[in-house]
């Protein structure tokens, strides 16, 4: 009975198979995406961690793909850059056909899924979790693909820590036809929690908006944080030596 072994965080095949594995070096943390009234909103911070060191603080982890889609990625940045190169080629060929048809988000999501799953089958994954959002012909689309090829669509998606910290907030507070302002505020609420509780988060983020009209990625900005609580100022009052 052969089972896939996961040893020390790497994916390692059965001993008799040829070994092919990988190890992430420069990584991005959570990405969150939501559908709103006019289209899609995706948020991600600009951090590139190197183990426990926050090495790069201006990494753009959300990129437009063609006219209709946005791709956000967490995980190994070099693999994300390679995925962008592949998608560049895909969009180029799509444009060259010049047949009035353009690849929409559903097609791009499917392409990404195949790419990730096929690499996973060779035990040489692209070490990313992807969020793909788009609008085409009035239809909003939001999907996700993991490094082992798990893929699905939903009204709100998140990667990494976002799964644990942001999703519960989104499940509670997301609703159909969110306004742009409400959508941004909801994402900021999630990003603030991640900033408090995710060790790899940095306080420099971008939110990208995609509608039928096109794509806009916001300039980098930082969130205000709240520390003025009495129990923060005097955490050990009445319990000296505790934390």
């Amino acid at each position, binding site marked *: 009975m052969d089972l896939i072994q996961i040893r*020390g965080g790497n994916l390692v095949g059965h001993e008799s198979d040829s070994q092919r594995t990988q*190890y992430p*070096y*420069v990584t991005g943390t959570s990405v969150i995406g939501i559908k709103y009234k006019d289209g899609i909103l995706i948020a991600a911070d600009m951090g590139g961690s190197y*183990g426990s*060191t926050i090495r*790069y603080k201006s990494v753009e982890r959300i990129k437009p793909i063609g006219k209709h889609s946005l791709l956000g990625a967490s995980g190994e940045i*070099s693999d994300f*850059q390679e995925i962008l190169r592949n998608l560049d080629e895909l969009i180029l060929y799509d444009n060259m056909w010049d047949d009035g048809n353009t690849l929409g988000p559903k097609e791009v999501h499917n392409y990404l899924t195949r790419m990730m799953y096929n690499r996973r089958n060779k035990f040489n994954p692209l070490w990313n979790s992807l969020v793909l959002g788009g609008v085409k012909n009035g239809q909003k689309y939001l999907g996700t693909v993991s490094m082992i090829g798990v893929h699905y669509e939903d009204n709100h998606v998140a990667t990494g820590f976002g799964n644990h910290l942001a999703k519960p907030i989104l499940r509670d507070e997301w609703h159909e036809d969110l306004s742009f302002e409400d959508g941004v505020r909801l994402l900021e609420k999630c990003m603030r929690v991640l900033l408090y509780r995710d060790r790899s988060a940095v306080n420099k983020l971008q939110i990208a908006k995609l509608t039928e009209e096109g794509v806009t990625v916001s300039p980098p900005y930082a969130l205000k944080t709240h520390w003025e609580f009495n129990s923060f100022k005097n955490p050990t009052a009445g319990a000296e030596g505790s934390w």
Partner: protein
Amino acid sequence: MEKFDLDAPHSTGTTIIGVTYNGGVVLGADSRTSNGVYVANRASDKITKLTDNVYLCRSGSAADTQIVSDYVRYFLHQHTIQLGQPATVKVAASLVRLLAYNNKDMLQAGLIVGGWDKYNGGKIYGVPLGGTIIEQPFAIGGSGSSYLYGFFDQAWKEGMTKDEAEQLVVKAVSLAIARDGASGGVVRTVIINEEGVTRNFYPGDRLPLWHEELEPQNSLLDTWGAAATGPEPMSM
């Protein structure tokens, strides 16, 4: 069985730095090549020429980085002939990334590409382990760089002059050498701008002294013993 601690950054002996300034770039490095605890070469040159206007700072496996730089120099040479003019820094960095990314399982190379071209001026590109490529106003790498993140957060300023930038680089490598066992020797800098390339050499005695470091002297006898007032007898 090896246990990979995913939280331990895979750092590599050496300190390398690349800094842009108003008109070009300054690259800097230490000169220690270590083989375990032995210093195999105390005066290595880790800043390698790729083209007349683009240089590479190498950290990690000496063998891996040497072969990568040899391949990139070879490709860039042909590219220059075909293009009919000097290659851009971006193209050089792209080639370095290509090799680093496609051989990520086998290479241990943390690289900084820096240079000057007429279209974009001075540019620095970091290519860390894994083959990510990232354009930065300044880049630091190697094991010694751990001690420099805080220093650069405080000391780096946009729009420095050439001399300010070089002083910053020399100070930084010197600080890293003071604390990192895998870095040492001399500080080498390479300045690249529109006028050309300048190589500088800063031996230990021309570097500033840091905390708990003493001014070197020829012998103890210069300051203590017979040449002075004579050794004091111990009192009981």
